[in-house]
């Protein structure tokens, strides 16, 4: 149920400052596409693509990973990752009454991610298209929810 809430909470489309529009492309996600997701991420990491990560915590816990080509300005896409994650958190608060906090975006080393992507945890992969002045740039997003681990206070 919460997994589906994360998918639904992703923003569909937004204007990105003076740099065009960002749109979520209709694409299959979750377990049905995992093998393809892992291949895609492996290819992107091997080609030196840049990886940006944000963690979310509170009523839902996990990681958002954004992967973009190495030729792109990292800071610009860190901000895009921030907006995607923050809009998701805002929608979860407004529509699901869920309290989700987002961490600041930061770069992530590829070797830290491989284990997560190949783990048995369910994952979501979606792609945004960033359209600016006739150019279309794919921005790949992975969401890795973490199951809540209750601490069990006495």
């Amino acid at each position, binding site marked *: 149920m919460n997994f589906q809430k994360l998918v639904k909470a992703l923003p569909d489309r*937004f*204007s*990105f*400052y*003076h740099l065009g529009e960002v749109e979520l492309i209709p694409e299959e996600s979750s377990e049905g596409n995992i093998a393809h997701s892992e291949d895609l991420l492996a290819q992107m990491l091997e080609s030196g693509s840049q990886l940006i990560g944000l963690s979310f915590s509170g009523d839902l816990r996990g990681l958002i990973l954004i992967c973009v080509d190495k030729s792109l*300005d990292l*800071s*610009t896409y*860190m*901000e895009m990752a*921030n*907006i995607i*994650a*923050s*809009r998701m*958190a*805002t929608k979860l*608060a*407004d529509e699901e009454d869920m309290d989700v906090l*987002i*961490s*600041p*975006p930061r770069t992530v080393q590829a070797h830290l991610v491989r284990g997560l992507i190949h783990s048995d945890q369910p994952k979501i992969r979606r792609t945004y298209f960033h359209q600016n002045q006739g150019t279309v740039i794919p921005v790949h997003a992975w969401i890795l929810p973490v199951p809540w681990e209750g601490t069990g206070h006495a």
Partner: protein
Amino acid sequence: MAKTVLIVDDVAFVRKTLTEILTDAHYQVIGEAKDGVEAIDLYTKHRPDLVTMDIVMPKLSGLEAAQRILKMNKDAKIIVISAMGQESLVMEAINVGVRDYIIKPFSSTDVLKTVERALIDEAHMMNRSSQREKQAR
């Protein structure tokens, strides 16, 4: 004399975009901070007319930094510029004492209107208000 602004955001792209908007509109950007700790240091050093403050940042959040700046100077003018748009967060920011709240991504029009509104001096507002009352009599 140009009004001075301190820009606080952990992402360089946002700092650059805000600097360009404000400089083009003839404000003087006296500094850029990338976290709440730097924000307090630079505010203490420069005492800008206005601070633009992100919320989610490393080391110290924007709301905590705003609280500490307002404790230092209750008349400090701070506007929050954040991608987080939850009503609870907006209310928390207002309760802390910030002047306004802009949700990212912002347009230059949004920023400039909000900055202008925040910089209207309260004494000036009271003066204008009393002038209107005199004219009405």
